[in-house]
């Protein structure tokens, strides 16, 4: 049977090599996990779909903590996402630096959308605790 080459560039199996992989920022901090991949379809008839973003459902803190507490945070993150019209955290493919055992991003994790769960905990819970924001004397 005759065959055609898949393509001449690096080959990536999306499920095997992207889904459930940890996302790490430029400082090596975990910032989330890949839950889905977003494609853009061009109008041209023979155009191939282009990867535009990696989508992450859970915030970095849920991944860090794990266990019951992490699960509770993940649930809070999902409720937060629901308030935002079910939009998952989106990581533009342009900031992906390398795809390996983890997916390295050329960005500061603090500024990523995947970090919104951690920001929500800090802004809504921790900052409301008396004494928050003051260094202990």
């Amino acid at each position, binding site marked *: 049977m005759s065959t055609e080459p898949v393509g001449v560039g690096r080959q990536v199996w999306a499920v095997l090599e992207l889904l459930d992989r940890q996302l790490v920022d430029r400082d090596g901090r975990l910032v989330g996990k890949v839950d889905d991949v977003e494609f853009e379809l061009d109008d041209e008839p023979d155009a191939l779909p282009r990867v535009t973003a990696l989508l992450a459902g859970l915030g970095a803190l849920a991944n860090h903590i794990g266990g019951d507490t992490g699960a509770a945070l993940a649930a809070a993150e999902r409720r937060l996402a629901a308030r935002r019209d079910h939009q998952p955290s989106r990581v533009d*493919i342009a900031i992906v630096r390398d795809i390996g055992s983890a997916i390295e991003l050329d960005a500061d994790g603090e500024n990523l959308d995947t970090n919104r769960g951690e920001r929500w905990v800090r802004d809504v819970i921790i900052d409301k605790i008396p004494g928050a924001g003051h260094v202990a004397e």
Partner: protein
Amino acid sequence: MLLSELLGAQVVTTNGDEVGTVHDVVLVQDGPMGANGRAGLRLHAIAVGSRSLGSRLGYAQGTVEGPWLLRRLLRRPPRLVPWSAIVQRDEHRIVVDPSFRAPDQD
């Protein structure tokens, strides 16, 4: 379009023959250069059939090499259907041209 919209979809030919279900897709870094100076990833083919142990571990795709015994036992390559063969698609069903030629994975 999302990857999750493709995974699990039933693939049939325009003749009505069942090909299998989508369990992975092949991306190739050969798209237009992005703002980061790297070529973009494009979806070239869908992998169709049951998701075997070999494909879960990466032997079927050739991304895992050793040990050789497992490689020999589990390296049964998945059936690839080029994206260009798709003639119709919805959330649960993908219709392909039966004359498609399986792309070479190497």
